[in-house]
């Protein structure tokens, strides 16, 4: 494979703004030996999505804002404001 590895950070924010607070998070490291997993930390790695940008993470995907289907306006399922970030680590 190539001369680098990807680290992925997923942040779930309190609303669609990147500078809103982090309410959930996940990390998957393709580089290095650190293995993140469910339940491995109770404190978010960043206070907001903007803080992640300032620390060098590159935003690669953000969830869309979708209209609410008639009759299902109050139904809740998955977390709504999901942002994927990456860091490319040269090896």
């Amino acid at each position, binding site marked *: 494979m190539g001369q680098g590895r990807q680290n992925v950070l997923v942040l779930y924010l309190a609303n669609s703004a990147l500078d809103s607070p982090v309410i959930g998070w996940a990390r998957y490291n393709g580089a290095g030996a650190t293995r993140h997993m*469910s339940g491995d930390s109770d404190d978010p790695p960043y206070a907001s999505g903007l803080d992640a940008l300032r620390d060098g993470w590159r935003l690669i995907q953000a969830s869309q804002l979708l209209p609410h289907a008639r009759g299902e306006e109050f139904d809740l399922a998955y977390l709504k404001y999901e942002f994927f970030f990456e860091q490319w680590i040269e090896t």
Partner: protein
Amino acid sequence: MDRDVTDQELPLLSDEQMASFVARGFLRFDAAVPEDINAQFMTEAGEPPEATAGRKLYSAYGEFLAKNAIPEIAPGTALYEAYPRGGAVERLLGLPLVRGALRSLLGEDPIFDHHFLHVTFPTRYHEAQGGENVSQHTHQDSTIDPRLSFDVQVMYYPHAVTREMGGTRFIPGTHLRKVSEVALGRYQNIRGQQHMVCEAGALLFLHHGIWHGGGVNRSDRTRAMFKIRMRASGSQKRQWAARHHPRAESQRPIFYLKRTPPQDTVAAILMRPEPWFEQDTGRLEFLNRIKLWRYLTDDPTFDADYWMTRVENGVTA
């Protein structure tokens, strides 16, 4: 089963405990099960075989489950007739606290769905078969379940659980979301998540929808948790020590407040946000809690902080 406590004498849940269950999806009771039942359960459950190089962990696990004294029970069995008389689980289910909580949440004569002895192995078991010791992905049990009524899952911790041993991880307040089992496995950590660290004999009574997962066991001993799922056989409405009469309760002032309102009322409990609430859908969580409280109190007019009144005004015009 404790035959000395009649149904009329059961310690039923209070309005405040029921409201907390509706809002957060769980009730926790520490030191609920006496030590002699915990010891009996551990004897009946037995010890899993020690890690052996090259031996498949989950085939050894399966053999262990097949050989221990916990019975195989068909779903649909009456809960209080499901377990052998005098066995640890039958004795646990006979505890007044357990019977009172189940009566309050499920009504009379709950029905057994399934049970399982969850054993979480320390690192050496995984290393022996060349595997990785990781936590379980967060999930909601069973499958998409759009009901307003609910099943209860009792999680029983027969021995002390330290943080190093992992413990069950659960996220209070997630139970009203309609998701598909482990589709949410990507959510590694959520603000407000709790880890079940406890002394022997702790019980969790969970709404079937609460998001949870087994924590990774970094200690040197196996961790056991016994789970029983059960459902109602009849009405779940006003089965607890219900004193709350929503129709008689006036709405409390909202937003512009001169002083901190009482925090121990049903309305205050139902309107208490969780740390992970999104700013907009947190309000929908409040609406869904109100709907569940309406269902349980059999009062379609109940409201808290005007959330339902506002969106229902004029709907029949």
